[in-house]
């Protein structure tokens, strides 16, 4: 077996373990800086991935572990995506370090372990690896979510995530058992060959649906969204950010693999289910976010809505839809991470992350205010930002499927209505910043150099993806080529 296929995962794991080792000898004040080491390491791995890892044209898919692990275009796209996300989240964590009582090195290391889980997830070609990578992510996040043990909300969020997460794991495993029992295989490749003949087997469908439940939990789509607002609110901000982008994207990577590699013939008959889940997620997330005052909770609801938007591309059941999902996720990465970075810095002393805490931000730090404004505009889908173009691609993919099923037109309408509703609360956030109101604290916010660079990068990413979509779109199209 060729271990070099697993180079990303191995390097990240080695980095994480190395961090834990170094932690033993480091004096306490220096530990915070380990985050920069971790970020630099992840950055190097990202560079390595971009410039040294290429799939030979002759064999676009390479397997390891007896076909459990597949390295293909999709996997590579997601691996780079996760590395970039982790890089930004780690830099954010360094800013957050003073709010974590002890064990900051473990905090960084756990992030790296979660990252390795995501890297595995992007390559899963077997239910066993799907399950293990999913759990690697989830269990690490249990710890990360409740890392601020002094805060009751952090603990409570951790316990809630734990119970609902374990519940969804139980459903997933039971589902896998049933799928395995009928088809006698756990491998996606083998399954795709035989799945068509079980199309009417109720037990098989039952099992498959339960697997979807587990993935629906990961991406926080209706009706498995219930945990998201509480956990987003309670978790430490960098963890929330990682949850919002990394964990969600891992869910989508697995969802794409299960739906379009393992059982494409059955997926084709599930358009109704996907349309309903997508539409209701959009409406639920956007409606619930309106009366929200807590910024992190608001982004929790917004993330439910965005799971719905992303599912538009899945529901479209077309190559255009799938590449739109990848495109939208990329835009979402810059958008969401810049929003959370701003929250992390601006709401340092604010109780309950109230939106009002942003008051006067444009005077405290124009950069943060500008970034937040752009992030909100991108989330709301205002041109010329990434969010606009991503939504455009997703809706286009759905409209194109309109002639086959009238439900797609309803879905388009729902999504547009959702966008209009969302304007209200996203602009509420912008207003809270520029509205002078009773800004209690007008002391300038110091933005460290790495974070400054990160924010410039995120702004650049949002604008670039909104204005010059061709490059990434081409990459996304390549990545989804092998999906059916």
């Amino acid at each position, binding site marked *: 077996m060729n271990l070099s296929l697993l180079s990303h995962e191995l390097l990240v794991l080695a980095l994480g373990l190395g961090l834990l080792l170094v932690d033993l000898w480091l004096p306490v004040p220096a530990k915070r800086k380990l985050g920069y080491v971790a970020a630099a390491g992840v950055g190097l791995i990202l560079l390595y991935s971009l410039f040294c890892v290429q799939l030979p044209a002759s064999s676009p898919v390479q397997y390891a572990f007896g076909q459990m692990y597949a390295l293909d275009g999709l996997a590579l796209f997601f691996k780079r995506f996760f590395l970039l996300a982790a890089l930004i989240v780690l830099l954010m964590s360094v800013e957050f370090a003073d709010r974590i009582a002890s064990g900051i090195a473990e905090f960084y290391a756990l992030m790296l372990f979660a990252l390795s889980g995501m890297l595995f997830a992007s390559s899963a070609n077997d239910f066993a690896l799907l399950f293990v990578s999913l759990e690697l992510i989830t269990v690490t996040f249990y710890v990360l979510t409740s890392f601020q043990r002094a805060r009751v909300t952090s603990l409570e969020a951790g316990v809630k995530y734990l*119970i*609902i997460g374990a519940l969804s794991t139980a459903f997933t495993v039971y589902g896998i058992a049933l799928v395995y029992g009928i088809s006698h295989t756990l491998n996606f490749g083998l399954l795709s060959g035989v799945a068509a003949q079980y199309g009417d087997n109720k037990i098989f*469908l039952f099992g498959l649906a339960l697997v979807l439940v587990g993935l629906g939990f990961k991406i926080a789509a209706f*009706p498995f969204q219930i945990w998201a607002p509480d956990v987003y609110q309670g978790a430490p901000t960098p963890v929330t950010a990682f949850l919002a982008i990394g964990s969600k994207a891992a869910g989508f990577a697995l969802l794409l693999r299960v739906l379009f590699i393992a059982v494409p013939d059955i997926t084709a008959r599930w358009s109704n289910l996907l349309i309903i889940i997508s539409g209701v997620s959009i409406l639920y997330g*956007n*409606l619930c976010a309106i009366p929200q005052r807590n910024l992190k909770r608001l982004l929790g609801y917004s993330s439910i809505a965005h799971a719905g938007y992303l599912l538009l591309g899945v529901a479209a059941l077309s190559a255009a839809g799938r590449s739109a999902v990848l495109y939208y996720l990329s835009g979402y990465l810059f958008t969401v991470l810049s929003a959370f970075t701003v929250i992390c810095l601006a709401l340092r002393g604010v109780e309950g992350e109230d939106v009002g805490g942003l008051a006067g931000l444009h005077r405290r730090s124009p950069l943060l205010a500008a970034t937040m404004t752009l992030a909100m505009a991108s989330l709301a889908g205002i041109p010329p930002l990434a969010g606009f173009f991503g939504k455009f691609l997703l809706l286009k993919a759905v409209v194109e499927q309109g002639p086959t099923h009238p439900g797609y037109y309803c879905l388009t309408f729902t999504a547009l209505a959702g966008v209009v*509703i969302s304007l*209200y609360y996203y602009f509420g956030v912008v207003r809270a910043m520029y509205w002078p109101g009773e800004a209690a604290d007008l002391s300038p916010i110091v933005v460290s150099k790495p974070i400054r660079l990160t924010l410039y990068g995120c702004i650049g990413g949002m604008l670039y993806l909104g204005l010059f979509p061709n490059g990434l779109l081409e990459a996304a199209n390549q990545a989804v080529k092998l999906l059916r």
Partner: protein
Amino acid sequence: MNPDFIPWIILFLPLLAAVVIALFTQHDRKLSAGLSVGAVVAGFVLSLVFIKLNGWAPAHEVSVAWLTIGDLQADFGLHFDPLSLLMMLIVTGVASAIHIYSWGYMSEDRSLPRYFACLSLFTFSMLGIVLANNFLQLFIFWELVGVSSYLLIGFWFERPAAADAGKKAFITNRLGDFGFLLGILTAWAWFGSLNFAEVNKGVADWKGEHWLLTVAGLLIFCGAMGKSAQFPLHVWLPDAMEGPTPVSALIHAATMVAAGVYMLCRVFFIFTPDALTVIAWIGGFTALLSAVIAVQQDDIKRILAYSTLSQLGYMVMAVGLHGPTQAMFHLTTHAFFKALLFLGAGSVILAVHHEQDIWKMGGLRTKMPVTFWTFMVGTLALAGVPPFSGFYSKDGILAQAAQHSLPLFVVGAVVAALTTFYMFRLVFVAFLGKSRSEAAGHAQESPPVMVWPLRILAFFSVVGGLIGIEELYGTQLATEHTEHAVSFGQQLIGPFIHAPLAVGVGLLAVVIGYAAAYALYAKAAKDPLPEKLGALSRAMRNRFYFDELYQATVIRFHDFLAAAADWFDRCVIAGVGVRGTHGTTELAGRALRLLQTGNLQTYAFIFALGVALVLYMVLS
């Protein structure tokens, strides 16, 4: 050398200025203003150069492939034809005058750099609309205009009224844009392209149901309804007066509101006769309604705002009456004299220390002679007195109406009379007579940087009707008068010859309006109309209660939903406070949120229910 690269520079110069100001020169007031003014004046000069090199015709496009998705090829392109070139000239020209004027008007303001950055962004967006060669690009710039107008109207955001006005403008526009977007998507779905030329071809070859095309046309018209403030989306425009006066001038004259009418003319080919009838009536109704409201306003800027609404109604009506040429002609002349009137009003407001009530002015004629005379020119042009520019363009619309629809012709004539009436009411009360307040007594003429733009605009307001603008539009747009005047003398009397009825009625309306205004206001110390008209006057003062009406209907809708929710689930209503102006969506949001009890057992239960739901859908 091919001059086609010049418009790219014209388009992007203001954006460059906005970016540079926002990023680097926030603290240097002079440099910021200079950059912004320089960019737009350079744009104006370059426009002249380009038109000199290129000529007005033939129509052509330059574009770069922007993105390709599947079979959709979206270009970023510029379209040159007489329509877009002349608009480009007007936008840069009027914007130049307003930029220069702003330098004087805003010189005391703390946030001057921000102001100029927004102003440049606005100019950029508007130029983008004018030069766009496809729907997608048009829509993007369309939204950018919306955003920059939000920034400018709410420029003095410390004042709640200004912040609210900005929001109102933005949301009302979004409402129209929703229809616009649906229209664009429809056009794309049917014709497979977003390029104007190709959609035009598709419409010509259309073999499907006629009414489908009508619906598509009306959806696109929704966009114009928002931007050009047509009934029932007109409510934002008067409130937009909360912005600085030069911004009002810019929004009202050559840019934002003109975008709607320009768009209608640009995609005129898509409208079926049925759609045009609807457009004409909405335009006519808006014209009449706002002219009536304007009669009883006391705020100088609000009078002008309702006047703009009314004139926009005229233009939209002209489009609906198969007369895009006349609409664009009126748009152009209106750009000159309305910019002039607003800048004149700004000059007055500054002179009387930010007092906007005309009943507290008076006697300004001798103290501010230049402002008075230029304002007078604007008034005469707006009223449609020959040989001022407004006469020719308004007459074109009346002639068009006389030809197509008698009721709309009557509406047009009544509006013309009302226009003269309220404009002379304004002039009599604000400029003539005695000073009615101390501030008005001490008023002084504005500085040269503000007065010169007034003079230049006044010049164009006088001659705008005679320099061949209509003929230029006529070469491109559908026109129903084939004869073209050749000599200056013929141009001067042209309307008298080929549309004597329209001219006669139009002049009669002016005379009636002037006589009424003279009789009532020439020597009035306070407004005599409220006593004579009673309730009607109150309704007019309160703008026929449209704002209140919208408020009331939204709340009514709220109550209805609340009752439905009561029946559905008592606990839904318990958590719902029906609070004032928040949308119905907030209600739904508040109700849905109750699912999130915070209790883990409820969560587990809901999760299990969700599983059951998915299983049911998969297995059934």
